[in-house]
């Protein structure tokens, strides 16, 4: 089959992301040496990529479906603070804290999804509202309950090992394993199971998708729940890992995950993208932010690289998408 030809590969949504990642790796290999590809160096960017990637994939799926969720920026501290307050401040069992933190993720996702479906207000605005609302809840409640903006949490036993520990010589966060497992799961559901097709159809043309019998409302709900719960999950794991939670922080996830998704080849208006692409985009982002430490450059320049990378990736992805659209089998094949 010609499906493994170069042209075939370039027409895939993740083509730009793969090339971008390659370019970034070469760039830092030249200017920073190969240290960042050795285990210690890899751990530094894998940890960043894992925390980002767990949020970026469901966010990317939302974007493929034509929606956006920026409330993830508030869900990370919300998840962290919930588990810290319940299991740290009140000293209740850690599993209860974990359960409640994830439940809040589900609840906020349901509210986001419900508002988007019922009001038809763009999801950027809806989730901007919930971003601030949740930030307010986190700050207000934390200060009210604990009289502090930082809460300590001591975790031991299986919960610590499963959600917030280091593995493989004490450098790699367990989140990396979660990230890899979740990525594999998402790849299966999005690209191999029939449900993935529904997400693309929804982002391509919502009305047609609904007319084709796809439960678009339910799917929207599920995707919003997935993104906000994933964000709460990352926050919860971070609180367990670092033994404390702060009310601030998390906002960086908003832009970082959008960058990872867009560099990964997802079309902002929906209908096009891939989980593998988002995976590459996430690694690319993490390599740039961490790789800078292995070079002689001032780390302040990393934002410049990310900015250029983002624009370059978007242009490249546009080109590849046009190639994919204009592709037709060679004449004379009949």
């Amino acid at each position: 089959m010609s499906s493994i030809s170069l042209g075939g590969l370039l027409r895939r949504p993740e083509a730009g992301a793969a090339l971008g990642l390659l370019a970034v790796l070469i760039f830092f290999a030249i200017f920073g040496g190969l240290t960042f590809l050795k285990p210690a160096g890899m751990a530094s960017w894998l940890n960043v990529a894992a925390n980002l990637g767990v949020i970026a994939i469901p966010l990317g799926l939302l974007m493929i479906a034509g929606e956006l969720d920026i409330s993830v920026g508030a869900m990370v501290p919300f998840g962290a603070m919930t588990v810290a307050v319940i299991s740290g401040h009140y000293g209740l069992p850690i599993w209860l804290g974990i359960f409640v933190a994830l439940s809040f993720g589900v609840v906020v996702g349901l509210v986001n999804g419900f508002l988007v479906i019922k009001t038809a207000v763009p999801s950027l605005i809806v989730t901007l509202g919930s971003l601030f609302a949740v930030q307010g809840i986190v700050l207000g409640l934390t200060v009210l309950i604990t009289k502090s903006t930082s809460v300590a949490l001591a975790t031991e036993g299986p919960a610590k090992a499963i959600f917030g520990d280091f593995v493989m010589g004490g450098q790699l966060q367990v989140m990396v394993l979660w990230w890899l497992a979740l990525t594999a799961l998402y790849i299966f559901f999005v690209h191999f199971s029939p449900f993935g097709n529904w997400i693309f159809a929804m982002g391509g043309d919502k009305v047609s998708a609904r007319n084709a019998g796809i439960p678009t409302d339910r799917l929207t709900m599920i995707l919003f729940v997935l993104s906000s719960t994933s964000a709460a999950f990352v926050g919860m794991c971070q609180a367990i890992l670092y033994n404390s939670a702060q009310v601030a922080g998390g906002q960086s996830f908003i832009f970082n995950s959008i960058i990872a998704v867009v560099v990964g080849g997802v079309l902002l208006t929906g209908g096009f993208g891939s989980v593998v692409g988002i995976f590459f985009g996430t690694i690319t982002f993490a390599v740039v932010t961490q790789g800078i430490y292995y070079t002689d450059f001032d780390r302040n320049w990393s934002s410049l690289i990310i900015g250029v990378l983002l624009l370059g990736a978007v242009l490249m992805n546009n080109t590849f998408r046009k190639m994919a659209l204009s592709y037709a089998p060679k004449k004379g094949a009949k």
Partner: protein
Amino acid sequence: MAPPILALRGVNKSFGPIDVLHDITLEVRPGEVLCLLGDNGAGKSTLIKIMSGVHQPSSGVIEMDGAQVSLPNPRAAQEAGISTVHQFGGTFPLMSIGRSFFVGVEPTKGWGPFKVYDRKNANAIAVKAVQDMGITRITDGDRLVGGLSGGERQSLAIARAVHFGARVLILDEPTAALGVKQATHVLRIVNEAKRRGLAVIFITHQVMHAMAVGDHFAVLIRGAVAADFKKGEKTREEITDLMAGGASMASLEAEIEGYMASHDGHPPPPA
């Protein structure tokens, strides 16, 4: 003559205080093309939405095979065999032909939780269905729909509806955005669907296209059926005049001409 597959009897629709459709009575039989003509705003879209389950009639009855049915949602309409193809094909530009053909009813292989989308099979079926309808230029199911021409996209959507067992095919302005050659493709497919015994409801405001395939015509003006006639009963000019509002259009023209004659050729100010 075969009994009608789909019939509307005295259907009214109003949105709040605004009456959009008045006493619509229409029927369509297997192997027959019913052309629904009307200017913009005549109520064609609302009528389609009622037949495809998007809206519910405020009063009146929908019958299929002589029995009263209710179409509470698009899915119910589809299950009843009513398929609607919209102006832009209702297809997904950035999806492959195979995937968009099977949206919502993806074929799978494997077992249990490991059922996976069967790309090869889906592509093969989709390509064959489209070719059977007479579009032989589509040979690769992995091509993206956005790379097809407008006519091919329409044809793909129609082939999809036919493949999934549609008995009534509602085509909403399928030729409006197409060039002459592309429109011919679509009209040929309409004839093919008709030959296969489907009932086709063809919505358009292009009288030429309607006359090329239609057996039965209904002209909609301000939400009411203004004329209902068989092929050959009216000329093209008569139909065009009807669509534009007939007598009222003629008197409006006379009024404007009179105004211009007495005002140095200036048209009247807009009302």
